[in-house]
Structure formats: C-alpha cells, structure tokens
C-alpha cells in the first residue's frame, strides 16, 4: 500500500497550556506537524514531554490553547462537540496502553462499541463488522469471553479490533505495547505494521521503545513540549 502525500492530519502552531490558579504549565509549544495519509509515525520523548497531550489533540479529544488542528484539510476548531464526536467515530480509532476495555462487556460487545455511536447502522451489520475485526486480530474464538479472562496481549488485540471495527482512516496508539512483555509487544507491533502496510491505515504511535519506533516510517521526538526532531 502506497503512502499518499495528502495530509490527513495537520497541526499548525499548536500550543497547549494548562492553567491552574497558581501555576501555568506549557505542555506543547509551537508544534507544526503534518501526518500524510497512510503514514506510520511514531512519537518519542521522555515522560511528561507532551506526547499524550499531542495525541489527544490529534484525536480531537482536547483543544489547543493556540493553533489549529485540521482533519483532511479542514480546521476543526469551529466544530461543535457533536460534530467532533462524529468525526472521531468515523475517522479515528484509539488504542491505549491500558486497553480501556469495558470489563462488564464481552469481547464482541467491546469491539462493537464504536459502531453503536454510528447513526443508521443496524445490529446485524455491527456484529458482522465486529466479527471481521476480531478475525483480523486472530481472536475469533474469544468473542464471548470477558476482558478479565484474557491475557494482556489478547486484551490489546481486542482494543485494536475495537479501533478497526469502524474502519477508521487513522489509528492513534498511545504506548500500545507499554504494558506487555517483549514477545507480546512484538505481536502487537506486527499487527499494527500489517494494518498500515495492507490496509493503508494511517497510524500515529506514542512509544518509549526505540526499536519499535525505528520500524515506523517517521519518528518525531519531543522534549519539554517542543519538537526536537
């Protein structure tokens, strides 16, 4: 699958400042970043350098203090909460270090979750898509299991299946292998690389693992909220 030059995400002059009564913390400072369609980008940096904040801004989960975020060339700062939610649902899939699976829902129900927020999609289609996503991550046999009955690697694969179920253009992964041993970490990394290679899914991954970061097409380094490489 070829990488297209058209930017799917564009961050311009991004600043993020957390303000409390007594202290002002600059989390991100003048970040300019373009993510092309089909790219696999990794973000590295020490703890507290703003990696997760940057990912939240890319995922439209937070608003920058200054600057603009554009999806498919359209700035989203004027979008309503409902429009942003719809955009997240259609365009973006999330994978988290701690999986964020709902323990009281079976694997299949967890994977179906993003599709519940997609207007007009029937139960049958949701189920088919969720099953197909679970098949992609090799967990077809675990649909009725609950997260507590799975290993860490399996849980992360469920989380990836959940991100895939909605067929998003972008997957934002926040330290997806952070809680896994090296073997399972490799498995998950292979899965993400495969998705990018075979399906052209744009992936932005925050990681602390240099080896994994080197497997991606581009590496962005942050330090104290600024882009240093």
């Amino acid at each position, binding site marked *: 699958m070829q990488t297209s030059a058209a930017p799917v995400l564009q961050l311009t002059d991004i600043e993020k400042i957390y303000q409390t009564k007594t202290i002002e913390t600059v989390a991100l400072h003048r970040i300019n970043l373009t993510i092309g369609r089909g790219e696999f980008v990794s973000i590295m940096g020490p703890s507290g350098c703003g990696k*997760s*904040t940057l990912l*939240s801004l890319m*995922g439209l*989960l*937070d608003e920058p203090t200054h600057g603009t975020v554009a999806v498919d060339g359209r700035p989203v700062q004027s979008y309503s*909460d*409902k429009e*942003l*939610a*719809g955009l*997240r*649902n*259609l365009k973006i*899939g*999330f994978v*988290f270090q*701690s999986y*964020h699976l*709902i323990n*009281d*829902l079976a694997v299949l*129900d967890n994977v*179906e*979750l*993003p599709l*519940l*927020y*997609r207007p007009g999609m029937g*139960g049958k289609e949701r189920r088919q898509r969720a099953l197909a996503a679970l098949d992609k991550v090799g967990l077809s046999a675990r649909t009725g299991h609950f997260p507590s009955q799975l290993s860490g690697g399996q849980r992360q694969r469920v989380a990836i299946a*959940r991100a895939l179920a*909605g067929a998003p253009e972008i997957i934002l992964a926040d330290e997806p292998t952070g809680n896994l041993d090296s073997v399972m970490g490799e498995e998950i990394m292979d899965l993400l690389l495969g998705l990018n290679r075979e399906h052209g899914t744009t992936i932005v991954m925050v990681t602390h693992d240099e080896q994994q970061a080197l497997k991606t097409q581009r590496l962005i380094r942050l330090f104290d909220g600024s882009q240093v490489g």
Partner: protein
Amino acid sequence: MLKHLFTLIWNRKRANALLIVEIFLAFVVLFVVGSLLVYRWQNYRAPLGFAYEQVWEVGLDPGIQPKAERYATQQQIIQRIKSLPGVRAVTRTGSNTPFSNSHNSSNIERPDQRIFRPPSNVYRVDDAAGDVLQVPLEEGRWFDRRDDGAPVVVISHDMKELLFPDETAVGKFVVADGKKRIVGVTATYRADGDFADPKQAIFLRNGLQDTTFEHLETLLVRVQPGAGGALEKQISADIRAIGPSWSSNITPLAEARDKQMKTVLTPLVALVITCVFLIVNVALGLFGVLWQTINQRRSEIGLRRAIGASAGGISGQILGEILVVATFGLALGLLVAAQFPLLGVLGVRVGVYGTAMALAAGLVYLLTVICALYPSRLAAGIQPAVALREE
C-alpha cells in the same frame, strides 16, 4: 443502544442489585399508598347522591319522659320546627344520618332469587326525606301519600344494579323486612361520606303504624341559605318548651362532614408524609450511588467520548442506564403489585390498582430521572483526554 444498555445493566446486575431492590421497594410503597389515595380520591370525586348544605341534624333526647308520650311530643316538635321561618322541610330518621359513621345494614334479596347478597345500608325515612336531602332519582318517584298502607321502598342505583342489572326496578319487589314494592331508584347514595365506597342502599318508608319514638329519634332539617345561630337557638328553645325534659344537639351536616373528613384524612396525611420521607431517602440513595458510579466510571466515559459519544450522548446514556435499572426494579414490583388485585389485598376496586400501578411507575421513573440529571451532567462534563490518562 437500548439493547446495549440492557446488556450492560444485566452484566452489572450484582453491582446494580441494591439499586434495583431500592427501586422495587420504592415502587411497592408508592403502589400501596397510591392505591389507597386513588381509591379515596375517586370516591371523593364521585357524587354523594344527596345535598348536605343547609341541612341540620337535630339529635333528640327525651330525658325522663315516659316512652308512651315521646312520639306525640316528637310530632309536636316537628310541626313547630316546620312552622319556623327559615325552615324549608323536616324529616324524621334513624341515627344513621349522613357522615354520622352510624350504620344499619341488612341482606336485601329478590323474592325470586334467594341467594346471598352483600349487606346493604338501610335507611328509615319519611316522605319529606327526599326534599330535605334532595336525593336525585333515576327511576320512579320518592314516597308520598299514595303509599299509605302499602309496603314500599326506594332503592339506590347500586342496589338496582345488584338486583335488577338489566331491567327496570320500579314495580318489582324486594324482601326487606317483608316483601316490598319498589317505587323509585335514586342515584348512587353515599351517606357514609365522601371517601366511602358506593354501597347499595334501600330506603324504608316510615308507615302510619310507626308511632314509636325509638329508632327514629333524629330529625334532619333543611333550612334556608343564611340561616344561622338565631334559628339554631330558636329550635333548641322550642324543643325545651314543648318537652321540658327534652334536650337536643344540633349539628349542620357540613360540620359533620368536615369532622368526618378530618378523621379519614389524618391517617392518610400521616401515611403520605411517611411515604414522602421514604421516597426522599430513596432519592438521596439513588443520587449518591449514581454520583459515586460516575466517579468510578470516568475512564469508561472517557473511552466512550473517544470513540464517538458526544457529551449529550453520555448524558443520555447515564439517564438511559438508570431508566433500565428502574425498569428491572419496576418489573419485580409489578409482579408483586399484580398479586394485589388477584388476592383483593386492599379491598379496593380492581381499576384502582391499575391506576396506582401506572402512577407509581410514572413517579419512580420521574424520581430516577430527577436523581440522574445532575450525575449525568457531571458525566457529560468529563474531559476524555484527562479521564483516559487517569488510570
């Protein structure tokens, strides 16, 4: 989404069990209290079947006067009261006057159907009672001189429905202290008061042979609007003048009604107040549990926001969840409530149970929505970026 909510609540049934039990208990209490209130309210709204305004009850006590003389003295008193300006009509009756909580009942039958019937209220009255109490008639007429020497009765609508449901009652006979012919059918007559259930009633005419004072020692006097203390004093004075040993006790029926209403309403109000306290406790419990639940589910809410739920969607989901929990509690409650009409637990009409069920269910839903509003707003305000990092 609804299926998803049911799945979620079902899978969290242990965590939600306490809430479900709380809602179940609240429903049962509301249903029982609601049944009693609806029953009383429906009775209160129904017509009494007579006009109590401007009617005074005059209780007579002949004192030491010999029994043989009492009837004549009573007749003199009646004639004297009738002649007073401000008095429209006077009737002589038994002690079971309206709102008196005094009853005289008997099993009334059809001569051709000697089967067990529920007891009916029996009223001993004379020809003037129809005017004094302004009893509306559905069929036939009230007693008059044409009935002298003939055993006749007037029955109420409810007795007609019991004994002659699909036919005209006037001209038919009933067995009530002997065989008697029906000359009229009144509307439903509820002398037991505003909150009493309609009960079949029969009016027996005091015949010419009823020349004893006993059992008919009460007078009902219809006075003109505006009649007050002066007339009351005059009546008392005239009674003492005619029968020096006699005394009287005059009570307007409106006053007797008020007194009876207080007696009935006081325990009801106490019950409602207790019920309100209970419901407030349930509401606070629900509110607290929901608030705590929202705090425990911050990461889940953050996740839902990340994968496409809007703030309004989250708020709606929390409301939806509590409504589903309420539905589980109500389903249990309805199972219990359905036994009440089957077993006749409260002794009220079957329709009352249905209304009370609907009211109690509506109130429980309203209560849960009110309790969930603030926690659902809190949930909607959770910042996903923050919530997802908290774990």
